[in-house]
């Protein structure tokens, strides 16, 4: 089963929603920076969810990640989903 890391999250954000010049996704505080402060809105999160679903073969119900604040929260959520899928 595929792993899902912060690097995967960065890669998917870059491909799906792009990165502004003033935003540093590789900064050390990336995981705990609010998506809003990284320049990502609800549509960017929707795109992220779609891509994670497709790539990792998991279902993410509508709204589950709609109010997610930070990359670390997404990481925890997806890890839990992947564990569910294994059992």
């Amino acid at each position, binding site marked *: 089963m595929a792993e899902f890391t912060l690097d995967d999250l960065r890669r998917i954000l870059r491909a799906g929603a*792009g*990165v*502004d*010049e003033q935003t540093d996704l590789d900064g050390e505080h990336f995981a705990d920076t609010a998506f809003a402060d990284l320049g990502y809105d609800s*549509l*960017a999160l929707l*795109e992220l969810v779609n891509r994670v679903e497709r790539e990792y073969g998991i279902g993410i119900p509508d709204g589950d990640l709609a109010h997610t604040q930070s990359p670390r929260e997404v990481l925890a959520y997806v890890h839990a989903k992947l564990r569910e899928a294994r059992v």
Partner: protein
Amino acid sequence: MSASGIRPGRRGRSVVTGIGVVAPTGIGAARHWESVLAGKSGIGRITRFDPTGYPVRVAGEVPGFRAGEQVPGRLVPQTDRFTHFALAAAEDALTDAAADPATLPEYEMAVVTASSSGGTEFGQHEMENLYQQGSSWVGAYQSIAWFYAATTGQVSIRHGMRGPCGVICGEQAGGLDALGQSRRLLDTGSRLVLSGGTDASLCPYGVVAQLSTGHLSAEDDPARAYLPFDAAASGFVPGEGGAILVVENAESARARGVPSYGELLGYAAGFDPTTDGTAARHTVLVSVIRRTLADAGLTPDAVDMVFADASGVPAEDLAEARAIAEVFGPGGVPVTAPKTLTGRLYAGGAALDVATALLALSAGVIPHTAGLGRPAPGCEIDLVLDRPRQTDPRTALVLARGHGGFTSALLVGAGDRDALKR
């Protein structure tokens, strides 16, 4: 107070202080203007997709546009190419006008652009995802990238312009209508409007959608494919790109201490739903030109040059020539169509024509219509051919007609910016 919200008798002066161009003739107003003076065409065989097997294989493509360098990174995957063009042109226009939106009141700045195809290429890509892979492969940004107001919205957000924003869909005439609307906004509380239009529909879906008009040229030779007012006219070549202008009220521009390329002196629009036969087209255009002049408080002899709509469809060219001859007299005013270098740019076409007209006024030159051979019989107009005329024009009338009957005209007058004068 009239229905438009403008008090009768009150009309401020609207001036253009900044120009941003993304066109087949080049990126940036200076490069575009050099191409116009040199008669350097941006029309060639389509490279954005393989046109083999399509009835239209020649177009005006913007050379060397790199979205990754000219558009904020986040907006590259989130928006269509027509929005990329407008974001780049808006940035250039604001720089050109020395206008920093962060220092101006956010509710007194507005964005009004013209759109004709919307985000066609983006939409085609997502439709391919849909029918090749399934609905979960359709990107979330399809919801905001395809539609007509996408460009206005993204430009507005990018520059914090929260005044009355909107989009006008009037096919090839839309660029003039957007500028007409800008003038209204400047009379109702706005001080700066980003206006104009862009189009980028050179993808299979975009081109095929235009084929039903029967007006696109099937000619393979780029030098022969778009010859308006010419005996060999065979329709028009589609193009991509356009222009974004900074339009301000004259007091605001004066307070900022910036010169202007020119002033929007008069505007009018009409509609003619009958596209068969030339009689009605001619009549509506005559009426629109006369009302534009009346709006400016000027008579035909005050017009120094006309930028023609230049359809390239013989019956439409004849109707336009008849209208111009009826208002100005046969051969009564120099007529030009620099758009033979770009093809017809849909929502971007009339906006680019206004930009070219303003550059011509500031340079004191009537640019020529490059590439034509023998004038079509019956076109009794003084077409500027072969080379520019150094006649120091002070006014320019820009005409535009859109598929379905849109008919508009805008009269611009020279300003006090002459940096381009040679």
